[in-house]
């Protein structure tokens, strides 16, 4: 019966075969807040943000910077690109290097290193956070592709993401596996909320592992890192957004495979962190500049989106940089000192948006 249903769905384009994308409406109604945010700096390769309540830390390439007085002061340098950082309550910091190793720098656990969990080496550790009980939580995006090749995992229909917990004294354990890309994790009570990017949803997993329960599903984009907001709730970055064309290509195995084999990944029909750089990128109908204007509501190849979630995981409002903007591919957003700091990975920018600006922008 299910097979028949799948067959008829495929023929009629219904159910799983539907390529429809939820509209950006309600709490996701577009604005220009990210596009108009204050530009603090353009960095070499910004990747993640962390705060210990006193300072803001930025992972930039192989370095970790402490952001102060309008500039970055180098805190540490590593032998590979830093793919995620988080601050430990004891003043130390946990860092993912090259996606393959999690290290503790400073604090009581200085020098600790892990590079595997459940008998499987880390490949794409892309987000870190620390629970109140001192456990380190991490997501390992994919078994097959390092984190900079996330697009290969998406177009290859990867489902090998996992979430990992490292107890204060002990070895890493998997608390969730088989996720369709895991990118972003945040402790919520005894649970961990995980962004399951390719399924456009955020799931809650019990701290000790167990069945995943969707908290927020059917997002119009691919969720990524998740950080707590000061007034309760969370900031969820949505680093790329969905389009009907990509949904369609994901359901076209032959085209998808030939594209991955024959075409440079920069020019795939896929979401991207930035776009409009060259005519070799695929163009969709609504992208055509008419009378000198690119429509902001054109299908987004790249987009900037941060969603403010309530404490129970429902979207309250959102911040945008639309298709005609440049602050796209927001991978990290963290609240610090009364403002939201963001990394737009597309243009490699560090952005700042104060609470007042957000309130003013939403009222407008």
């Amino acid at each position, binding site marked *: 019966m299910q097979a028949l249903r799948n067959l008829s769905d495929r023929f009629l384009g219904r159910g799983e075969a539907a390529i429809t994308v939820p509209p950006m409406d309600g709490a996701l109604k577009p604005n220009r807040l990210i596009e108009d945010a204050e530009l603090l700096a353009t960095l070499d390769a910004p990747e993640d943000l962390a705060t210990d309540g006193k300072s803001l830390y930025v992972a930039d390439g192989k370095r970790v910077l402490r952001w102060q007085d309008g500039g970055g002061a180098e805190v540490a340098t590593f032998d590979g690109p830093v793919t995620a950082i988080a601050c430990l309550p004891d003043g130390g910091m946990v860092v993912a290097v090259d996606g393959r190793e999690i290290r503790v720098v400073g604090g009581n656990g200085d020098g600790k290193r892990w590079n595997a969990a459940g008998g499987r080496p880390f490949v794409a550790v892309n987000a870190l956070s620390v629970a109140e009980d001192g456990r380190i939580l991490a997501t390992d995006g994919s078994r097959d592709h390092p984190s900079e090749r996330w697009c290969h995992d998406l177009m290859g229909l990867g489902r090998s993401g996992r979430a990992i917990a490292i107890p204060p004294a002990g070895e890493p354990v998997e608390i969730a596996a088989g996720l369709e890309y895991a990118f972003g994790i945040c402790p919520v009570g005894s649970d961990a909320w995980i962004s399951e990017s390719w399924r456009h949803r955020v799931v809650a997993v019990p701290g000790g592992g167990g069945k995943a329960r969707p908290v927020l599903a059917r997002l119009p984009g691919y969720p990524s890192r998740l950080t707590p907001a000061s007034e309760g709730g969370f900031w969820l970055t949505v680093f790329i957004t969905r389009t009907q064309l990509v949904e*369609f290509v994901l359901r076209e195995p032959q085209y998808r495979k030939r594209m991955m084999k*024959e*075409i440079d990944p920069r020019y795939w029909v896929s979401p991207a962190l930035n776009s409009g750089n060259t005519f*070799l990128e*695929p*163009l969709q109908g609504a992208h*055509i*500049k008419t009378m*000198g204007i690119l429509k902001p509501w054109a299908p987004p190849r790249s987009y900037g989106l941060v969603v403010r979630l309530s404490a129970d995981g429902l979207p309250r409002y959102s911040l945008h940089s639309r298709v005609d903007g440049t602050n796209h591919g927001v991978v990290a957003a963290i609240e610090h000192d009364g403002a939201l700091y963001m990394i737009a990975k597309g243009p490699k920018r560090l952005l700042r948006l104060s609470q007042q600006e957000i309130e003013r922008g939403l009222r407008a």
Partner: protein
Amino acid sequence: MSDTITRLRYKYWPDHLLGEILSKRWTETGVPVIVLLVVGFVLSQLLDGFFAPAILADTARQASEIGFIVFGMALVMIVGGIDLSVGSMFALTNFFALYLMHVLAWPVFAAVPATLLFGAALGAVNGILIGYFRLRAFITTLITLIIYRAAYDLLIFDYSTQIAAGFPDSAVWDFLGLGEVFGIPIIAIVYVALAIFGHIFLTRLRPGWHITAIGGSRRSAYNSGIAVRRTIAMCYVASGVLSALGGVFFASRLATVGGDIGVGLEVLVLTAAVLGGISLGGGNGSVTKAVVGTLIVLLITNSLVSLSVPGGVNRMVLAGILILAAVIDIRWLKNRHRIISKVYVAPSYHDMPELPSTAPDSGTAWAQNDKLRNVDAIGLGEIEAPEDVLLDRHDNLFAGSRHGDIIRFFPPDYKRWEVYAHIGGQPLGMAFDRNDNLYVCIGGMGLYRITPERKVEKATDETNRSWASVTDDSRLRLADDLDIADDGRIFFSEATVRYEMHEWPVDGLEARGNGRIICYDPNTNTTHTAVRGLKFPNGICIAKDGQSILFAETFGCSVKRYWFDGPNKGKVEIVMENLPGYPDNINLSSDGHYWLAMVGMRCPALDLAWRMPGFRKRMAKRVPVDEWLFPNINTGCVIKFNEQGEVLESLWDLGGVNHPMITSMREHKGYLYLGGILNNRIGRYKLEGADPNFVQYDLRWGKAK
């Protein structure tokens, strides 16, 4: 390997024909005809002597009798009603004819018209009630069905013995019933004659058009001044007359007034009409459909009778067919446009060789640069959609706009402008002839001419229809660019014959040779198609030899040459192929070469999709047009090439910041003027080292006196 199969499959299987055939109105008749042929074939295999002359003649008689009534029903259905009383009217007129002949012994020439008049009167009751009093057709004719039937039953109770006893001594009366001309029953001849008249009536005469119009939309018909009530009433009268005609022939053939005559006839007739494809909703039907439906139903019922199937089963089969036909009718009418639009788009296999590099460090003439970044903008925000730009010998700058105007900018600074002429359609390519007539291709309209006195004249909007084409390709759909030969002949491209101008992306999705080059000769005022099967032919330029044109195939990514004169006359030769972008207009340059506008650039994802027609077909069905993978026309460039097809230089505006999209360019006195169909400006670029006195008009037609 599988690529080869795909290529052959799409090369030889004409996918595009299915949609074109389905969008023809005659396909709706085609389906019942096919059913008729199948039914006829199956029954001829099943029954012995199915095609024996005697059987055929008998079938023809019955078919004609019922056929008259189906015509009446068809008329009523086309006008948007229904006539259930046909069976009772048939019985009553049958009785009336027999009463006149057998009992009153009238002569045939009086009895037949009297019977037809009687039928008209019966029909008029329906007509007046439904047409003028606007009662519901279904209820009204149901009531008249009962009343007429009751009257018939009362009358035969009184007169059946008298009729049976009477014996009209009339050879004409017998001839009506059983006579034959060259072995063909007389009734069949009358039927065919009536069918021919009916066809002409419905398709060529005013009342026929009125009937269809009322059935299509009663309110619109009323608003356009059609006498709706009278026309409807007359349709019911006609139905009565046609029933009477059937009754007359039936009376003359069998001379019987049995109690079951005409019982259930309305179902048979209705089934025939619906099965033939006459829509229950009105506004859609033809004589052919009525004839085909009649034949199918009669063949089935007759064969059931000869197979000794009980009468009840016979009726059930009829009813079953009726409901099936009605369902198909309604579903088809509702979904016709959706089905056609899904089937019509038929992508082809379009294999492009590997994309040549245009990288800034590629070391070729294509290497990207930012030369066009600083072009001046003329008419910024004032002109919309100047596809082509043209300068005359007095330095006036002409350009089209999407409001259907030709705009003239005045020299020297081109800040002042006026509407030179209003045409109404989107102007595309433009050229001056020797006598200062401005010829313009208008998308959706054809080739137009603006005289020096600013009078707008149509030059041509049609060409010869090609026999092999299913769609009517005689009308011009998308005349695109033109140039004028020395003898005044105008060669212009028509980008596609399958789509309208705003549907150009669909043509790009198909990437089939849907376009052609057409020649208009103003000396003889004739038009003919010169070359066909081109992939979106676009820019056209008379080559310097004066015997050939260079033309660009936008989705073929190539420039070709066509000789219209000289030793190579009729030949087509490739000048440039596998261009990295989509070529548009071609024009002369001052140094003896050619300028070519690239409206957009190729991207690998679309190149791959062009090799996968199935993928594109599904995309067309499932993805909205705004989300389709498109040819990238946000970035373009201008190149200069020589007679041999070598690219000499290229001018770019990367990212299209200042001048997105370039569809045309024209060199004039040291400047290059740039047009773009989706732009709100005309670009002007200073050419270094170009002839400061170059005027294209002078080069073509000689210096002005």
